[in-house]
């Protein structure tokens, strides 16, 4: 079984995010970028499936400018077999991503597609679901356990109030939650080998997809700085402030 993993290049979670002076977007110029943590978990799960014999090949795909090859190489260093970059200038919105991935799935015919449940930059949490709908395939989102069982997969999901286990018929779509696994550290020889693993570059046109944005980014602003606390003299004063200043009562 082939496993396809979609990965995204995002701002490194250690970096303090800065907003551009004109509030048009987050400032990503010369900022350290990294593999989205949920995507890293997806890669790890796919590699474990391969190591356990449940999967035969792990293909990793990323969408973006040439720089996103760095993240594909990181995934290859973690154990993926080959990479596909879909070259786009800008980072397309989720529906475009899902459409591009759907075309890759049609070409590659993987038994399982694993994605992070969301990227830490946009926090949309929708690409996996859209992909499932476009392909008309079963989806198991927020997975905290994935077990291949013959021609189906059991996915344990973290839902409000507990765990839910679904049995999905393969081919299927899985999105990863934080507790699915703990990604490994890349080994030095694998980082070296990753350079030589195949990496195909395609364009949206190659895949017959026209990118269309349905949303417009109006403004980005930094969260308000937290104000220093104050000490109140009495419970009455506290209630008064909660009612009239904070307006929470």
């Amino acid at each position, binding site marked *: 079984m082939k496993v396809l993993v979609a990965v995204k290049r995002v701002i490194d979670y*250690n970096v303090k995010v800065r907003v551009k002076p004109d509030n048009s977007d987050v400032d990503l*110029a*010369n*900022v*350290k970028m*990294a593999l989205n943590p949920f995507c890293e978990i997806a890669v790890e799960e796919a590699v474990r499936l391969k190591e356990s014999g449940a999967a035969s090949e792990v293909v990793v795909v990323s969408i973006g400018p040439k720089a996103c090859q*760095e993240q594909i*190489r*990181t995934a290859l*260093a973690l154990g993926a077999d080959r990479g596909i970059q879909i070259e786009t200038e800008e980072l397309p919105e989720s529906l475009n991503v899902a459409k591009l991935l759907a075309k890759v799935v049609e070409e590659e015919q993987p038994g399982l597609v694993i994605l992070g449940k969301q990227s830490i930059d946009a926090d949309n949490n929708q690409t996996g679901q859209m992909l499932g709908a476009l392909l008309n395939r079963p989806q198991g989102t927020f997975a905290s356990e994935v077990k291949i069982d013959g021609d189906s997969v059991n996915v344990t999901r973290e839902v409000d109030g507990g765990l839910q286990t679904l049995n999905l018929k393969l081919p299927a779509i899985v999105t990863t939650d934080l507790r699915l696994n703990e990604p490994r*550290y*890349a*080994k*030095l*020889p*694998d*980082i*070296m080998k*990753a*350079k030589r693993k195949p990496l195909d570059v395609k364009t949206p046109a190659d895949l017959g997809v026209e990118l269309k944005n349905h949303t417009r980014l109006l403004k980005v602003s930094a969260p308000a700085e937290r104000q*220093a606390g104050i000490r109140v003299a009495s419970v009455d004063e506290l209630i008064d402030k909660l009612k009239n200043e904070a307006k929470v009562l």
Partner: protein
Amino acid sequence: MSDYKHPHQDAEFVLNELVGFDDLCAANGFDDINFELASAILTEAGKLGSEVLAPLNVIGDNQGVKLTERGVEETAGFKEAYQQFAEGGWSSLIADEEYEGQGLPNVLCTAVNEIWQSANMAFALCPLLTQGAVEAIAHHGSEELKQTYLPKMVSGEWTGTMNLTEPDAGTDLAAIKTRAIPNGDHYLITGQKIFITWGDHQMTDNTIHLVLARLPDAPAGVKGISLFVVPKFLLDAEGNPGVRNDVKCVSVEHKLGIHASPTCVMSYGDKEGAIGYLVGEANKGLAYMFTMMNCARQGVGLQGVAIAERSYQQALDYAKERLQGTNKDGSRFAIIKFPDVRRMLMQMKSATEAMRALAFVGAAEVDRAGRAQDEADQRRHQARLELLTPIVKGWITELSQEITYLGTQVNGGMGFIEETGSAQHYRDARILTIYEGTTGIQALDLVGRKTLLNKGEALAELLAEIEETVVALSKHEGFAEQGAALREALEAGNNARNWLLENAAQDPAAAGAVSVHFMMLFGYLCGGWLMGQSALRAQTLLDAGEGDPEYLKAKLVTAQFFSEHLLPRTKASLETILKGSASIMALSEDQF
């Protein structure tokens, strides 16, 4: 306890802008290696360093090591961390591909090593010593020794140690007494070695000791010392560790710092004699050790960079968090707003960046000298490597004392309390000016073998190169003051060199008396030279709209600070040098 984050931006700036990493790889036959790969390697090493090794640093300091019936028990958690380190292939960075190494450039290994040394210096000494042992066997051992020991040492499955020092033979290795008696295809080794770093532990199945000893018919002095491989466990027919050899750790030292690094007293041949195998030819042991000296000494210099960086990060975090000032409106502010705290942090930052620049530039000379295409090139780079090595070791480790001192100072009273972690860095740094040749030995090496022996030629070449940077700075409107300051420092360097060449012959005490000032002068001068280059490169990048402007603008200020606050120290050194040995040597021993 303090976190550690690899300063990847600065490391990458030095590799790209000062070392010229891609050109170095292309010109020296590192075909598949480029900066992109180096960056990926540094990123992944940075994760392992911050997340696995760094949290163990304070635990190792608190718990230390124990000598039990099994031998030395390392700090709990170190074994698992070591296995993760070895399985990740990180001990194979530099070794030849023939022995399953990755064959990466020394300068990249140096950049990666900074991460291990910052994250956990006591831990990182183990792979550092193993690397030294690997190099000794790889360069001088027979094919059989190489095939038998190297693959598992390179993979990190076995560790290595260096056994030189004895109770009466420290700096003066000619006094070595450990004996080696020929016995069939091997030798029987008897004697005691002290200060053996990671001499014993339970992290791996075997430890391979490299031991200096004398053969029965050996000439007296340094020309009668041979080098032997002595495994902790003798190998069986399949090459696996089998019977225990007659060598054991009999005591571990209680130390000021690096508590988690076991410093062992090793006893060889308490029973029938420890079985050892000769490396290379008899009586050439010390010469073999000297071939590794540049790398080993530069490695300790790098530890100075690493501990300074860790101390700076800790102090910076504290300075941003510690509220000790009150604004007019009654709100409080952190101590980083105080000018004197700023002065200390800037001193730490600018010195550490200059030290990193010099450590990497020195490490790159190992690659350039080792792989030079023609003889003239080889000689030039070898001379530069040998000249820079005592400065890298001596100046950087001396300055690391001041940086870790300031780190504690920034913490105020809390710096004196162990919980903040600052005190550990201060204590751990203290060994660096001592082992692998004290500061005094480095300084003697610089004035003697590296200057007087070649009539100051190697220094003259360096000074000429620094002059180029002076000219480039002076031409640039924004850097005129830095150019002038570097010129003054350069003149101090020239004057010190000339004074030494003129006075060393008449006054036998002159060279030794001025040597440390001489070395420090050239350290600050090299620091100013590389910070000047950094400023020029940063400005070029800024003008071209490339790179991270926040980082590059900070580099400009850091270079300016170095020029204003640290570079003037060259003038004070010169003034002292010009006074020679008179007041140093005037007292009789009884007058002390």
